[in-house]
């Protein structure tokens, strides 16, 4: 098993390298010269050449790539082309919002969805189960901005609480004030992950419920609740961790749309701005951060699947 996990970590490392290659050379095909963009049309050729040398753009691509990778690993993301500010400074006051909203979504959304999903698996085929399935089938296919619009209509227009745009500074606010501040984005994201989580956790528990040792327990006359909590759930933990990690990885997309929708400053709005202003250094740095988060969550999902599956742990 250790060997398998090490192997998976190795594959993860290779994936990260591949990701960095895709991001670096993907942004390299940007039309226009970075130095020219930065200095404007009026710059003299000498100035442009000097600036290129300062950015290291006169080096061969492979050297540029290695320098960039080395700097990234040391926490130096370079300087923004559009604003001439170090990327780390741009990120500094924004990452808190993104991390706060994502973390709170996970903390609130995951337990509730898992409880709902496991309940549905406990009573399969009941009205509760079928309603929940129908709702999550519908929600899973709806775009984030649709869920967000419905929530805004409900809370802002019907109930008259909250604000359609998340405004104001987060400076000096307490935890509960912050939660109120970001209530709508967090609720939207909770719905986004809930629809997937409910279906997948229900399927994971039902999958375990159909295994022979559970049938044995049923035949012995063990009460259903006891079967779920003592027999099924322990074996479903692996698949459930897998499902949770996968869904948190999907949050990466959700966060981008939700930040733009509610218009607050976060990492996602920053990368969208980067794309609009063609600030490729910004895209490289932030793109790596997003992709790394995603790859790490996927890695956790895979390792959870390994650890929970005896057949994978002891391959024939």
């Amino acid at each position, binding site marked *: 098993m250790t060997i*398998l996990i090490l192997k*998976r970590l190795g594959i993860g490392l*290779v*994936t990260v390298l*591949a*990701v960095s290659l*895709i*991001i670096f050379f*993907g*942004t390299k*095909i*940007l*039309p226009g010269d970075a130095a020219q963009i930065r200095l404007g049309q009026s710059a003299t050729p000498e100035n442009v050449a000097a600036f290129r040398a300062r950015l290291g753009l006169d080096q061969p691509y492979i050297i540029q790539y290695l320098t960039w990778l080395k700097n990234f690993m040391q926490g130096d993301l370079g300087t923004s082309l559009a604003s001439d500010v170090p990327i780390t400074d741009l990120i500094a006051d924004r990452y808190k919002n993104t991390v706060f909203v994502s973390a709170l979504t996970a903390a609130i959304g995951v337990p509730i969805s898992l409880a709902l999903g496991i309940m549905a698996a406990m009573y399969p085929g009941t009205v509760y189960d079928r309603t929940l399935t*129908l709702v999550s*089938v*519908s929600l*899973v*296919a*709806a*775009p984030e*901005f*649709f869920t967000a*619009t419905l929530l*805004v*209509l409900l809370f*802002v*227009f019907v109930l008259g609480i909250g*604000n*359609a*745009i998340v405004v104001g500074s987060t400076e000096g606010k307490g935890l509960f004030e912050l939660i109120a501040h970001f209530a709508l984005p967090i609720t939207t994201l909770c719905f986004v992950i809930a629809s997937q989580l409910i*279906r997948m956790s229900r*399927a994971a528990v039902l999958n375990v419920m159909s295994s022979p040792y559970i049938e044995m327990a049923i035949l012995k006359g063990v009460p259903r609740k006891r079967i779920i909590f003592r027999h099924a759930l322990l074996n479903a933990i692996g698949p459930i961790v897998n499902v949770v990690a996968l869904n948190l*990885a999907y949050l*990466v*997309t959700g966060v*981008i*749309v939700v930040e*733009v*929708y509610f*218009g607050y400053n976060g990492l996602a709005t920053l*990368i*969208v701005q*980067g*794309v*609009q202003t*063609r600030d*490729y250094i910004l*895209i490289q740095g932030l*793109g790596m951060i*997003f*992709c790394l988060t*995603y*790859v790490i969550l996927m890695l956790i*999902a*895979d390792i959870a*699947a*390994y650890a929970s*599956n005896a*057949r*994978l742990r002891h391959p024939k």
Partner: protein
Amino acid sequence: MSNAQQNDHYVAPYDAGVSFDELPDSAPSSRYSPSWTGWLGISVVSFWVFIAILGPYIAPLGENDLPFPDDYSEFQMPRPGAWLGTDESDRDVLSRLMFGAGRTIGISFAATLLAYFIGVVMGIGAAISTPRVDMIVSRINDAFLSLPTIMLGLVVVAAVGSSIPVLIVTAGVIYATVVFRLARALGQEIMVMDFVEAARVRGEGRWWIITREIWPNAAMPLMTDFGLRLIYVILFISSLSFLGLGVQPPQADWGSMVRENLGALSYGASVIPVLAPALAIATLTVGINLIVDDISAHSGGKLSKRL
């Protein structure tokens, strides 16, 4: 080549979990009779397809025409002349919705077709090629698959700019990676089945095996998956447009309509300009989802579990 050898070469770890789920439990019966949720999905999707094709001809106004040119009429409530009100540039929401339908659905459908063409050809190709080729192609595919799709989209749009052909190719290539995995898994499962062995032993050629033995068995799961993939592509294209990186103004498309009119939520008179396109996307994708769910339940497959 023996079965043992075929199973020996590298398969991504998470493949182990999904493997045999893709094939239906029983042979599909020839006639599909939808349940009420199936009919609901079919009617909603047909409605939108109808609008997508005929929208530009039956729309009351052009997509950038102003219903009340002499009036300052931002975010008007619905009234005669503009049945869904006006948007942030005083244009008719209903007409833009009808023009946008064709663009959103057309781009997504073309991209999904492209994804299927690339994915199925490469996937089944990898399944029947030598283990070494298969491994190389699969590893490259996995590297792309391990990136969030929206990030790939952002990088491509940043690099080459946004236009409708770029959107179709980008979405097509990104989603081909998923189709590749499915087609390859299916191909491999079917490749080791007895009737394929039999065909091989009889000395049938590669082309015969693909078209006569593998394809008929892979078609059903692939077609159900086509519906799911179409949903994800619609959501992907709409998200890109919503971020301002997809279909560019003044052309209308549902995702960009939501973006343009976001202001209505904080100071507009009418929220319909935001709600209508968002609702259009949601009903379309949920409709497709209902059909897919119904078909896979009908054919005894387990595809619905994966969504």
